[in-house]
């Protein structure tokens, strides 16, 4: 493991979650030692990056001490994330620890309960280093909508890290945390992952509990992992996934096991996939993604032999920048070399997906955010009557983008416009799902660029909301259809900025999705080495 030198802590490069957990469990290092080193690194780097809204050293060290005690007590097997440094997007509730959602309206609020996903990660031994920055209420694609401060991209400090999970992506890319929990409503995990050169998974809607995730658009929101490699993302996903009685939209484990999509043709590791599915008596598919990745990687140079991969026409060509398009083409060549059959496929409804999303998401948001009324928690601006109090509280507490979306949603749902806007958008949503279903009749997975461009400069798009919305062009269809999608970094453009590629799978197809992503990752050999961080001097 990396050590401190005379100049202070080096960036703890190359440490995967798996390596940390195994070193902690074998006694080679301790969770406390790993935690201290990461806290020092955050102290050193975060003035430049601005990933954290709050660091929680006491909570982290208490948790790490408990992990070390559990390991000493012979409980290492129950701790797949033993000592793994975790950053938590500030949209996830943490009992007694401030949770702001990047908004002044929740400044200082201490939730009375912890989100299920956070609780499960901590239960597996992860160490919470703090709460990370985000666009206010997860609305945005650059983290510039945070009410507190911007976050900078570790690859180029003049550029945005993407959003809304920009703090999660930057903290992982800058080696401040090994993994992070983010949330994705229209691309908020995958787009910042692509901008920061890391891996981000948006799971199937309902695969991870939303209990304790502050709601933005309830039918689209999903909690997911972000990490520097596919295996670490899979490990965190394996830990946090699964049915939760506290979230009525979380999918029962039995259904998850029964509805696993199977590869169209036999793959070199199909047998291992079948064994993993059978070897789960409670239908829980325990640790199935990490196990599938090992099996797939063991297949070697023709690991994707038989895989049918569809390239989405609507999300390539003129829709994306030339550098991104070229990186996608190189990735397709890699997939072909590994044995995959790559073909283009058209999903015509995608042309309308962005428009539908920017009616549906604001409509749900306008309803969800009605709860911030100055009565039960958060900010209150005093006034003589209750309506004045609410209007002033919301005017002061919400930032411009949140107000814009609340107004947009209120309009789309208002009498006389409901059918024309919201009603039609819901029908377009059906068309997007049908297009996916048709494509998945022929293809195991679909592939596209994750973002139309690489990371843009701070301030470049803040005054043009529509231009900002276009950042989500490629990621939105997966949210509308509820399917899982992962972004993996594959290359850098001529300016040294990372480029991500997105893989999409049918509902509940995370096992196949992540195993294939790991094979591609191993073949493209992308290294997370953001220069601004690597050069960080004493």
């Amino acid at each position, binding site marked *: 493991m990396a050590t401190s030198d005379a100049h202070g802590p080096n960036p703890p490069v190359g440490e995967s979650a798996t390596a940390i957990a195994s070193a902690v469990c074998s006694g080679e290092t301790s969770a406390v030692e790993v935690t201290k080193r990461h806290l020092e690194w955050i102290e050193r780097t975060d003035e430049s990056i601005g990933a954290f809204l709050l660091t929680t050293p006491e909570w982290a060290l208490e948790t790490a001490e408990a992990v070390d005690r559990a390991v000493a007590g012979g409980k290492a097997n129950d701790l797949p994330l033993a000592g793994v440094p975790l950053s938590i997007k500030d949209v996830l509730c943490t009992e007694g620890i401030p949770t702001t959602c990047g908004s002044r309206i929740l400044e200082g609020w201490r939730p009375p309960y912890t989100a299920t996903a956070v609780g499960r990660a901590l239960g597996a031994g992860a160490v919470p280093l703090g709460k990370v920055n985000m666009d206010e209420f997860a609305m945005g694609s650059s983290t510039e909508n945070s009410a507190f401060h911007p976050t900078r991209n570790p690859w180029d400090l003049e550029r945005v890290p993407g959003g809304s999970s920009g703090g999660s992506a930057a903290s992982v890319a800058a080696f401040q945390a090994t993994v992070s929990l983010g949330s994705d409503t229209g691309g908020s995990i995958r787009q910042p992952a692509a901008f920061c050169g890391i891996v981000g998974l948006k799971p199937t809607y309902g695969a991870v509990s939303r209990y304790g995730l502050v709601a933005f658009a309830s039918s689209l929101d999903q909690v997911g992992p972000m990490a520097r490699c596919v295996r670490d993302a899979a490990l965190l996903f394996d830990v946090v996934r699964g049915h939760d009685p506290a979230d009525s939209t979380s999918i029962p484990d039995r259904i998850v096991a029964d509805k696993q999509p199977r590869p169209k043709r036999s793959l070199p590791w199909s047998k291992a996939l079948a064994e993993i599915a059978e070897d789960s008596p409670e239908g829980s598919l325990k640790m199935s993604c990490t196990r599938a990745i090992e099996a797939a990687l063991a297949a070697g140079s023709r690991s994707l032999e038989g895989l049918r991969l569809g390239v989405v026409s609507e999300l390539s060509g003129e829709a994306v920048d030339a550098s991104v398009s070229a990186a996608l083409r190189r990735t397709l060549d890699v997939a072909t070399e590994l044995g995959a059959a790559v073909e283009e496929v058209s999903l015509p409804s995608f042309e309308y997906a962005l428009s539908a999303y920017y009616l549906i998401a604001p409509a749900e948001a306008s309803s969800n955010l009605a709860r911030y009324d100055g009565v*039960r928690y958060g900010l209150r601006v005093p006034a003589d009557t209750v309506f*004045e109090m609410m209007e002033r509280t919301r005017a002061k507490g919400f930032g411009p983008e949140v107000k814009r979306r609340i107004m947009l949603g209120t309009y789309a749902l208002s009498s006389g416009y409901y059918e024309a806007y919201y009603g039609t958008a819901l029908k377009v949503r059906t068309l997007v799902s049908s297009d996916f279903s048709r494509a998945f009749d022929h293809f195991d997975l679909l592939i596209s660029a994750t973002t139309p461009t690489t990371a843009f400069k701070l301030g470049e798009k803040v005054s043009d909301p529509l231009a900002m919305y276009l950042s989500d062009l490629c990621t939105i269809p997966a949210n509308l259809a509820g399917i899982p999608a992962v972004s993996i970094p594959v290359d850098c453009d001529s300016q040294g900025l990372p480029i991500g590629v997105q893989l999409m799978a049918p509902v509940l197809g995370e096992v196949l999705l992540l195993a294939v992503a790991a094979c591609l990752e191993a073949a493209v050999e992308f290294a997370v080495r953001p220069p601004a961080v690597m050069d960080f001097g004493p």
Partner: protein
Amino acid sequence: MALTPDQVAHIARLARLALTEEESAVYATQLSQILDHAAKVKEIDTSKVPPTSHPVRLANVMRKDEPRLGLGPKDVLGEAPEAEDAMFKVPRIMDA
């Protein structure tokens, strides 16, 4: 389509947002642009398409109806801007 300042004021009232005149003017322009883009959904024939409000269809998931403890009044009221006698306190809701 262009939203009028009156329409913006009406939406803001429905959404309980007190806007300055300057904000109303900016939102009138921006919301009009966004709605123009969103109106693209009307270009495609959806007359025979059912709406989807939930992406993954689930049969009703039932659980046993067993009483259990929720959060206590102290936890619930602990973060309120103003509370009194186990109740949230608000300014008057009717005209004097």
